């Protein structure tokens, strides 16, 4: 299991272990500090970053980072909350280059602004697309597209 003092207590809001997986909730403004601290502790792999939309709860977004240490064979999940109007968080690309496409994906599908990202453009949807499809208030079927009019 992971050592308790993985991160400085001032960065962490909440620590929980469920189903053998460690989750640390991080102060959103201090995410880069947390990522840098993990990188010095041999967490060399940035596995992914994505978001969870808990609409209509507020703050509705959870930005979820998965990190792995190959050398120590450990995994950890970091979590930051973001509010519904203008969700934003610092981009992890300055710490881990691998975050680039994952952040573009989360921006495209959830509309989360990763500040300081070198190229924050849509990656899955066309450039002209309006809205962010993976938000819970975005319908699964029939959004702005009328098949009958074809």
């Amino acid at each position: 299991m992971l050592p308790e003092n993985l991160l400085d207590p001032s960065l962490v809001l909440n620590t929980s272990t469920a189903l053998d997986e460690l989750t640390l909730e991080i102060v959103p403004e201090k995410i880069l500090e947390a990522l840098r601290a993990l990188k010095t502790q041999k967490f060399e792999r940035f596995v992914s970053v994505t978001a969870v939309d808990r609409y209509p709860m507020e703050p509705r977004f959870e930005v979820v980072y998965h990190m792995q240490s190959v050398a120590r064979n450990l995994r950890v999940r970091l979590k930051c909350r973001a509010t519904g109007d203008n969700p934003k968080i610092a981009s992890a690309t300055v710490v881990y280059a691998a975050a680039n496409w994952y952040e573009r994906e989360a921006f495209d599908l959830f509309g989360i602004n990763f500040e300081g990202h070198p190229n924050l453009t849509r990656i899955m949807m066309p450039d002209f697309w309006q809205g962010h499809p993976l938000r819970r208030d975005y319908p699964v079927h029939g959004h702005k597209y009328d098949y009958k009019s074809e």
Partner: protein
Amino acid sequence: MSHTIPAEPEEKQSSHTRRMTLNMGPQHPSTHGVLRVVLELDGESIFKATPDIGFLHTGIEKQCEALNWHQVITLTDRVDYLANLSNNLCYSLAVEKLLQMEIPPKAQYLRVLLAELTRINSHLVWLGTHALDIGAMTVFFLCFREREDILRLFEMFSGQRLMTSYIRIGGLALEPPRGWEKRVKTFIDGLPSKIDEYESLLNTNPIWLKRTKGVGKISVEEMLEIGLTGPCIRGAGIPFDARKMTPYSSYEKFQFEVPTSTDNDVYARYECRVREMRESAKIVQQAMAGIPEGPVQADAPKAVLPERERMKTQMESLIYHFKIVTEGISVPAGEVFQVVESPRGELGYYVVSDGTAKPLRVHMRTPSFGNLQGLPNMIESRGIADSIAIMGSLDFVLGDCDR
């Protein structure tokens, strides 16, 4: 997905160093799917490469949120259509972890067997098409001959060649059919000699060696930094394999090696994959030899669909069947990140439940997406011909990448 073509580089250059912008794809046959790479060329060599993905984006993650837990299985097949059973397995393991369900040993062994057959299947398609890209056509026909055998086995198990949906939450969809042992044994015993055949066509082929050796090298640190997994990272000498590091589905009971190479080029990745096929054959043989007796579905009537026969003869089973089909199952609230080793690398499913009959979020951390991100680092400052070999060696499936 971008619809714009980048402007020509503006600075005035003398005629012999003028850069040209070239679109490779989205329909270029060697990109194996609808990948577009915008290449900025300086003569024959690539100055800058920008992969553009999203042409196969089908919103699978969004659709998962609209279906109930059992129905999502059919979508996981369609994520990576060459490694459908790995995706079925990863999703099922994630949901089972949330349900804290015990899977019977026979189902676990069969899952391992099927996952390894999937690996062989995927590597055969990769080897055939990769060799075809580089000009060795015969290998393609030989690989697809064996692949056909595997697809017939899948059809025998599940009734489907590609979209099997055979691994379900709680075990397997059905008992394996009578006589499967013999068919699998015939195939797997013959496989090593078939692999020898492919190797005899390639290992001493001077064109193959010239096109693959020393091509696509980047440093190990850069590979880890950019997020490459699977045979790509093992070809760089890191024995990073989820089957060994965090064993799932009783992989800890099997004896196998994780092939690595330190050359870190296209040839090293080829070598790793071919040796992996041999290891997979060994795992399948061990699974066949040690398969325990017992049921193939967990004893959890509220979460697992009952057997057809029981459903038609027992009242209680009929009630459970009706409830599971109409209402779906409720999974305790929580979140889990399950990792399996897919043929392409690390496949992770991040599944979040809020305690209802539908998932709150299913995120797929797919290996193709991670590996494709490393493409520019590998092909920049190399020739166009090398880029084809390097793209082949990354072994991406665009369905897996775009989801």
